[in-house]
C-alpha cells in the first residue's frame, strides 16, 4: 500500500498522527517533539480515539434515524450533527420546511453555540489563561465569574432542553421539521435568563479581550458558510478567505480527506494545494462579521476586536463575541416566534443524494448521504470540524514550539496544550492527557 | 397533627452491635407514643435512604425506650447502622397485629425463631415472663447461622437457667468448640413434649423455615389455627395504602404481620404469590 508523505513544513521529517475522523478527537493524546542541534526535528501529535464507524453503521438504517444516530458522534455538539443530517436528508428528498421551523432550528443552534462556547471559554480555555488546573480551581478565586458563566451555559442548555427535549442528544429533530412544536409560553419563559446571559456575555467579551495572549500570528485560509442575510448557522455557501465560493454540494470537489501513513487518521485538506485550512469561530468571524447584530458589532468595537483576528489564542474573544450574538439572536427569535402550522412537513422517500454543511460551534460540519427509494441510507460521508482543523493545529504547534524552544518543559507543555485548546473542547480535552516528551541533545 | 404517613424524629439512646451484621437501636419514643404489643413493628426512617419495617424487640412495659434489632441488609438498614447518640431516626408506628399472647395463657407456649426472626419474639418473652404464672411451659426453639449470630444469647440463657423458659438454641454450622446443638431448628421440635390440646405456637423466620416448622407442629397435633406465623412482604406505608404488602386477600401491615397459619398456609404453597 502506498503511503503518502505529506510534507507540511521543512524541518519535520516524519509525523505520525492518529486521529479518528468521526468523533471528537480525544481519548489519549501525546505530543512528541524531537529537537536536535537546537532545531525542531520532529513534532508528533498523537491523539487517539477508538474508531466507531458511524458511516458504516448508518448503512441500511432509515434516513429518519440519521439525526439521532449521528448526534451520538459528539456529546458536546449533538445539535450540529442533527442539523447537518436533517438538512442533508431534506435536500435529498426535496423538502422545504416552513419559516417557523427554520427559525426554531436556528434557535436550537443558538442554544448549542451558547452552551458549547461557554463550556469552552470557561471550563477549558480560561483556566489556561489564568493559570488554573480547572474551572473549579478558578472558582475559588473568581467565584462570581464562574457562577455567572454557569448561568450562561444553563441558559443555552435550557433552549436545547425546551426545544429538543434534553441537553445532550435531543430527540425532537425530525426530517421535515420537529416532532412537536414548543408552546410560545415555554420559550418566553427563557427570555429572562437569556437577557441576563447576554449581559454576562458582554462582560465576558470585555474580560476576555483583556487577557494576555501569547504571541502567534499566522496567515490562515479561513473556511466557513456565508449567507446573504444572516450570520451563518444552518445555511449558506461555502467560502474561504482566499476566494473560494462554492455551493455546499461542491465541497467534495474542493476538500479532501487523506489517510496518513502509520496512523488511523483522516485529515481534511484543500484539494487544490493539499494545504491546511481553518474552520470555526475565527473563520466565521473573518468572513461574516458584518452579519453580526448591531450590538455585537458595537461590543466588538468597544473591545478592540472589530478587526481581522489571526492569533488563535485570541479565539477566546471571538467565541465570547459569538456567544453574545447567539444570546441576541435567540432573544430575537423567541420574541418573534408564533406557533404556526404543522410541526413538520411530509417527507416521502425517494432515491437521491443529499448534502448539507452547517456551522457547528467549532466549525463547518459536512454530511452527505445517498438514500434509496425505500428511504434507507446506502452511503454516508461525514467530515467533522475537528478533522478539518487537524492540520492547522499541527502547524500552529510547529510554529509555537520553534519559537519557544528555550522554555522549560512544563511551561512549553502548558503552552502547547493551550494552543490545542484554542480550537475546540474536543481536542482540548484529549490534550489534558498530554504527555510532553521533549528530547534535547 | 395526625397523619400516619409522617414520621417523628426520635433521638437515639444508643446502638449495640449484637452480631457481625445485626445491631440493636435503642430510641427515645416520640412524644405521645402509645406503646406497643409484642409482634408489632415501626417504620424507621433515615432521610435520604428511606423507610424500613422493623419489629420492636424491646420490653413492652418499658415506656422509656423503643428497641429495634436490625440486620443490615440494604439501603435503609445499613444507614440505620450509622445512627448513634448524636443522630436521629424517624419513627412511625406501631403497626400491625400482635402475637396472640393472651390466647396462650393457661397453656403451653412454643416459640420457634430463625435468624433475625428472634427480634419480634423477645417482646413475647418479656410479656410472658412478666406474667409467668399464667403460662405452663414456655419453649423457645431458636436457630441461628453460627454461634456468633445468636441474638440476645446471654439474656436467653439466663432465662433458661432461671427455669423461666426452656430454650433450645441451635446453629447451622459451628466450630467444634461449640457445645450446643447443630442443625435446622425445625428438627428440634421433636424434642419437646407437646401438649396438642393446650398449646399456642408462634413462628418467625424465613418463609420456608416457617412452613417446615408449622408442618412439624401440625404433625404433633397442634391445630392449624393455634399456630401463628409472621409474614414479610415489601412494605412502604404500613397503613394499607400502598398495596405492596399484599398477600392474596390480606395486607401484611393491616391483617398481619402475625397470621394464623390456617389463614395463609394455602397461599404459602403457591410459588411467587
Amino acid at each position, binding site marked *: 500500500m502506498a503511503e503518502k508523505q505529506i510534507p507540511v513544513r521543512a524541518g519535520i521529517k516524519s509525523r505520525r498522527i492518529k486521529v479518528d475522523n468521526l468523533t471528537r478527537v480525544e481519548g489519549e493524546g501525546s505530543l512528541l517533539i524531537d529537537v536536535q542541534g537546537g532545531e525542531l526535528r520532529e513534532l508528533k501529535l498523537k491523539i487517539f480515539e477508538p474508531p466507531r464507524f458511524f458511516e458504516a453503521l448508518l448503512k441500511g438504517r432509515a434516513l429518519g434515524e440519521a439525526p439521532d444516530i449521528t448526534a451520538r458522534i459528539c456529546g458536546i455538539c449533538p445539535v450540529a450533527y442533527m442539523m447537518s443530517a436533517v438538512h442533508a436528508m431534506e435536500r435529498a428528498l426535496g423538502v422545504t420546511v416552513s419559516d417557523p421551523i427554520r427559525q426554531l432550528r436556528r434557535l436550537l443552534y443558538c442554544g448549542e453555540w451558547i452552551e458549547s462556547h461557554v463550556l469552552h471559554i470557561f471550563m477549558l480555555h480560561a483556566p489556561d489563561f489564568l493559570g488554573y488546573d480547572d474551572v473549579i480551581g478558578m472558582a475559588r478565586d473568581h467565584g462570581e465569574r464562574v457562577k455567572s458563566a454557569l448561568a450562561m451555559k444553563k441558559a443555552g442548555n435550557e433552549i436545547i432542553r425546551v426545544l429538543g427535549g434534553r441537553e445532550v442528544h435531543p430527540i425532537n429533530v425530525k426530517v421535515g421539521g420537529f416532532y412537536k412544536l414548543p408552546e410560545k409560553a415555554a420559550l418566553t419563559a427563557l427570555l429572562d435568563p437569556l437577557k441576563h446571559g447576554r449581559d454576562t456575555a458582554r462582560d465576558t467579551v470585555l474580560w476576555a479581550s483583556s487577557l494576555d495572549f501569547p504571541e502567534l500570528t499566522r496567515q490562515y485560509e479561513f473556511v466557513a458558510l456565508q449567507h446573504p442575510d444572516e450570520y451563518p448557522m444552518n445555511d449558506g455557501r461555502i467560502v474561504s478567505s482566499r476566494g473560494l465560493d462554492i455551493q455546499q454540494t461542491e465541497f467534495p470537489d474542493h476538500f479532501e480527506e487523506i489517510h496518513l501513513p502509520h496512523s488511523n487518521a483522516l485529515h481534511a485538506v484543500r484539494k487544490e494545494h493539499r494545504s491546511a485550512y481553518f474552520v470555526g469561530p475565527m473563520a466565521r468571524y473573518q468572513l461574516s462579521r458584518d452579519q453580526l447584530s448591531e450590538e455585537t458589532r458595537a461590543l466588538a468595537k468597544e473591545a478592540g476586536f472589530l478587526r481581522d483576528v489571526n492569533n488563535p489564542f485570541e479565539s477566546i474573544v471571538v467565541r465570547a463575541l459569538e456567544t453574545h450574538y447567539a444570546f441576541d439572536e435567540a432573544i430575537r427569535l423567541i420574541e418573534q416566534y408564533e406557533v404556526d402550522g404543522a410541526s413538520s412537513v411530509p417527507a416521502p422517500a425517494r432515491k437521491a443524494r443529499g448534502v448539507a454543511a452547517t456551522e457547528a460551534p467549532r466549525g463547518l460540519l459536512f454530511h452527505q448521504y445517498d438514500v434509496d427509494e425505500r428511504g434507507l441510507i446506502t452511503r454516508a460521508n461525514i467530515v467533522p470540524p475537528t478533522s478539518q482543523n487537524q492540520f492547522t493545529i499541527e502547524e500552529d504547534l510547529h510554529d509555537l514550539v520553534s519559537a519557544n524552544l528555550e522554555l522549560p518543559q512544563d511551561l512549553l507543555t502548558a503552552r502547547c496544550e493551550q494552543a490545542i485548546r484554542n480550537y475546540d473542547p474536543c481536542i482540548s480535552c484529549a490534550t489534558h492527557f498530554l504527555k510532553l516528551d521533549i528530547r534535547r541533545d | *397533627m*395526625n*397523619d*400516619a*404517613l*409522617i*414520621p*417523628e*424524629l426520635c433521638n437515639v439512646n444508643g446502638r449495640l452491635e449484637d452480631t457481625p451484621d445485626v445491631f440493636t437501636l435503642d430510641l427515645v419514643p416520640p412524644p405521645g407514643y402509645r406503646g406497643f404489643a409484642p409482634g408489632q413493628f415501626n417504620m424507621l*426512617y433515615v*432521610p*435520604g*435512604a*428511606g*423507610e424500613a419495617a422493623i419489629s420492636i424487640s424491646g420490653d413492652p412495659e418499658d415506656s422509656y425506650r423503643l428497641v429495634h434489632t436490625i440486620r443490615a*441488609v*440494604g439501603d435503609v438498614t445499613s444507614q440505620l447502622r450509622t445512627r448513634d447518640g448524636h443522630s*436521629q431516626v*424517624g419513627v412511625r408506628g406501631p403497626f400491625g397485629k400482635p402475637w396472640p399472647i393472651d390466647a396462650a395463657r393457661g397453656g403451653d407456649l412454643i416459640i420457634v425463631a430463625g435468624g433475625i426472626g428472634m427480634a419480634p419474639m423477645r417482646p413475647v418473652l418479656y410479656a410472658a415472663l412478666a406474667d409467668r404464672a399464667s403460662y405452663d411451659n414456655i419453649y423457645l426453639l431458636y436457630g441461628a447461622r453460627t454461634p456468633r449470630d445468636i441474638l440476645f444469647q446471654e439474656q436467653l440463657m439466663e432465662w433458661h437457667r432461671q427455669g423461666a423458659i426452656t430454650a433450645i438454641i441451635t446453629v447451622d454450622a459451628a466450630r467444634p468448640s461449640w457445645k450446643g446443638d447443630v442443625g435446622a431448628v425445625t428438627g428440634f421440635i421433636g424434642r419437646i413434649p407437646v401438649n396438642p390440646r393446650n398449646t399456642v405456637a408462634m413462628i418467625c423466620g424465613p418463609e420456608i423455615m416457617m412452613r417446615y416448622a408449622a408442618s412439624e407442629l401440625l404433625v404433633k397435633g397442634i391445630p392449624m389455627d393455634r399456630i401463628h406465623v409472621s409474614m*414479610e*412482604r*415489601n412494605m*412502604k*406505608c404500613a*397503613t*394499607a*395504602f*400502598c*398495596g*405492596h404488602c*399484599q398477600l*392474596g*386477600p*390480606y*395486607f401484611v401491615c*393491616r391483617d398481619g404481620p402475625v397470621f394464623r397459619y390456617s389463614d395463609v398456609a394455602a397461599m404459602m404453597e*403457591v*410459588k*411467587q*404469590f
Partner: protein
Amino acid sequence: MIQWTAEQLDAFVQLLHDEAYEVLGPVIRDGAVTYGAMQALPVGYGDEQAAGHYRLTQRGDQTRFGYNLGPSTWKQFLFPPSETLFSVRDDLIHPVENQPGKRAFIGVRACEMAAIEVQDRVFLQGEYTERRYEQRRQQVFIVAVNCSQAAATCFCTANDDGPAVRGSADMVLTEVNPQQPWYLVEAISETAKKLVAKIGGAPANDEQHHQAQAAVNEAAEQISRQLPRKGLRDALFDALEHPQWDDVASRCLSCGNCTQVCPTCFCSTTQEQTDLVSMEVRHQRLWDSCFTEMHSYTTGGAIHHKTRSRYRQWLTHKLAAWEDQFDVSGCTGCGRCISWCPVGIDLTEEVEILRKSP
C-alpha cells in the same frame, strides 16, 4: 329534574369558573380526550376503541359527551402520580401542607364515579385516613354524566356500575339527541341545586325523561364485553396454578400500563430525593404498579419475579382479593386496561379462559 340546552350547559361551565372552581374536564390533547384544566367543553368528539387501540374521532355532531373514556382518570387529581409527603431540612421534618382549592370535575362517567368510590374505601374507610386524599376529595364538586353510548371496550354492566350513574355525584347529566343535544339535569347536592338554579332551565317532562332513559338504555345495549362476576373470586383463587398465566405472560410486557390507566389501582411507592444545592431531602410518593420488580421486592429479590406472577397478582387483586379487602370489586368495567395495553391484552378474555379448568 330540569332540562338544559347545550348553551345552558356551556353557561354552567362558565359559571363554575366564575364561582372560582378549578374546572377539570375533557381536553383534546395529543389525539385523545384527556382530563385537565378546561375552559369550555369540546364539541363533537368521539373515540374508537379496541384492544390496544384508540383513535379520536370527529362525530360531526354537537355532542359534549359523545366520547367515552380516554387514558386519563380522575384519580390523578385526588391521588396525584407524584407528590412530596414531607421534606427534611435542618434535621426537622416538614410535612407538605396540601391546601386544595375548590374543584369541579366535569363529565364523570358511571364507572368513574364507581371508581372514585372504590378509592374512597381504600383511602378513607380503613383503619387510617389518607389525609391528602381526604382534603382533596372534600373539595370536589362532581358533575357526572350518564353514558349515551358505549365504547367497544366498555363492560360496566358486568358489575352494575353503569351506564347510569349510581354513586354520590353532586349532579348528573344525560345527553340526548347528538345533532342538537339537550341535557336532562339532576341536581343532587345542595351546592348543585344552588348552582343549577342560577342557570335556570325548564322542568323536564315525562317524554324527556323517557328519551333520556332510552339513550342510557341504548348505551347499555351497545356493551358487548362481559365479565360475569358470580363466583369469580373463588374461581380465580382456585386457578392460581392455571396454565393460562403462562400464556398471558408470553404476551404481557410487564410495562404496567394497565395499572396506570386503571381508575381504582392505588399502589404507590416512595422515593427520597436529595436536592444537592439545598441538601433538602424530599420524601416523595409515586404511583407504582404490581408489574414492577420493586413492588414485591424484599432483600434478595422480588417475590413476583416473573411476569406470570405479576399478571396473576394484578388480575387476582382486581377481581378477587379486592372483595376481601374492600368489600367491592376492584374493577368497574371501564375497559381502559384493554384499550391502553400496548399489545392489546384483554382481561375479559383472560378471565374467560381462567374460569375453565385447563
